């Protein structure tokens, strides 16, 4: 009897000790008490739209016009002996890398059924949905059970002459008859939640915008290290006017001007 009493007393003391400090404070959910304003599909559509506009601007105004000024763009642009800027597909990969470094859990990938690099060819579910996208250019959504991620795919169109000419003429190309307006590939976006608060939505859009600034700044840094090539003047002017490149701020400002109306429409609609 005495043993049971002692044991109970020790147990009670142990429990008291265990509870005395309380538990580890629970992580406050970023959306705790905040109403979710958008479905993940809506948010991914918004950011994909911004991506379309940004990439078209980069491809047309920087790569397309820049090439006419003698600027070079190359898949090995990061190598020291290659004095060039990132090709549009690598510009997107740079954005994706930057997003992954941000706290926003957004995944961004680019693929195709006729990629320049065979390792970028769609397989499985993505290949299946890409055939649908090629038919109607409409976005496709699915839930990736394995990774527990909401996934969206959007058509990536040949929106500039530079897309078509570079891909058709590329030594590694698996298709040589691309035309303007073709669905050349698709972007794939992933996000872990099915709906987002207003704040989370803005964070997604901001992380994309920051990604474009980061990769663009990396390009400007590479230019800084050019030894043999003529360096373009970096300021307010664009390659259309000569051997110039806009600063990251000027580039982002132009993106914002082009995208703000569409994005704002969605953001405001959610508040009505």
């Amino acid at each position, binding site marked *: 009897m005495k043993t049971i009493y*002692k044991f109970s007393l020790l147990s009670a003391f142990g429990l008291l*000790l*265990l*509870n*005395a*400090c*309380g*538990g*580890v*404070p*629970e*992580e406050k959910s970023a959306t705790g008490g905040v109403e979710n304003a958008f479905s993940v599909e809506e948010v991914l559509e918004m950011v994909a739209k911004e991506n379309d506009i940004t990439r078209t601007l980069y491809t047309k105004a920087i790569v397309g016009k820049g090439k006419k000024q003698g600027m070079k763009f190359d898949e090995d642009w*990061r*190598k*020291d002996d290659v004095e060039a800027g990132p090709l549009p597909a690598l510009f997107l990969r*740079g954005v*994706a*890398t930057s997003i*992954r*470094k941000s706290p926003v859990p957004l*995944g961004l*990938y680019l*693929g195709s059924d006729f990629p320049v690099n*065979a*390792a970028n*060819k*769609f*397989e*499985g*579910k*993505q*290949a299946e949905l890409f055939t649908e996208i090629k038919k109607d250019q409409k976005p496709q959504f699915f839930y*990736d059970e*394995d*990774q527990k991620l909401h*996934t969206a795919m959007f058509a990536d169109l040949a929106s500039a002459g530079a897309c078509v000419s570079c891909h058709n003429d590329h*030594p*590694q190309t698996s298709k040589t008859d691309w035309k303007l307006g073709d669905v050349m590939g698709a972007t*794939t976006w*992933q996000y872990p939640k099915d709906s987002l608060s207003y704040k989370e939505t803005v964070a997604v859009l901001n992380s994309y915008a920051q990604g474009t600034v980061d990769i663009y700044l*990396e390009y400007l840094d590479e230019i800084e290290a050019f030894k043999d090539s003529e360096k373009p003047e970096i300021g307010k002017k664009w390659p259309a006017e000569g051997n110039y490149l806009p600063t990251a701020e000027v580039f982002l400002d132009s993106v914002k001007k082009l995208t703000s109306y569409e994005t704002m429409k969605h953001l405001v609609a959610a508040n009505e």
Partner: protein
Amino acid sequence: MFKVSPLRKRQFLGGIIGLVLGAFICYILTLEATEDYVSIGPMNTGHQDLNCFACHADAKGNLLQQVQSNIAHAVGARDEGVDFGTQDVTVDNCLQCHDRPNDRHPTYRFSEPRFKEAVQHIDATTCVTCHTEHEGERVSVANINYCMNCHQDLDVENDPLDVSHKRLIAKEQWSTCIQCHDFHGNHRYDVPEKLKDTIPMKLIQHYFEGGEDPYGSNKKYMALSQEAWLKTLEN
């Protein structure tokens, strides 16, 4: 109530000595000088000078809080369990020192759904698949044929190599890839055009085990030292 029987005094004294000694050993093992004894194995190449905390950050809360929270989680009174002792080491820990813009195989890329099958063969979404820590080596992957999981369709136009890439793939000579191409693409070096000039497998194996770098020491980005990493945390 807890009166010690005169017949059990020796046991009691022994118990007390054991407790004090145990507490002392626990304390000693938390000191920097004894980290080698706590480590489950020798650190990998380049990590020899790291302290445990560089990767194993303290988990949130004190030990009692962690025990309580995990018991609460086990009985359903709490949504999430918590790390016990130290936080789990993730890819993010590695990237704090090893993140490189020129990485041709960054881990995040393999989260894309189309790599699902490849990842089943080799989980490239995480560094430790090939760089298991505490093994006293550089690369711990068992088989060097991992390129086969994604590059079966490779066909190099105007192939500069004397034995074409296509032929090497057809002959399933997957270990030859690494004899020219470093996986992460951070070395600056000229790739040979003749198979006989490629880096011998023996040297590659030696490098994996922690030996000299056969691709040369000229790298575009260097990993951060512990001191440099700590400075990044101050910003």
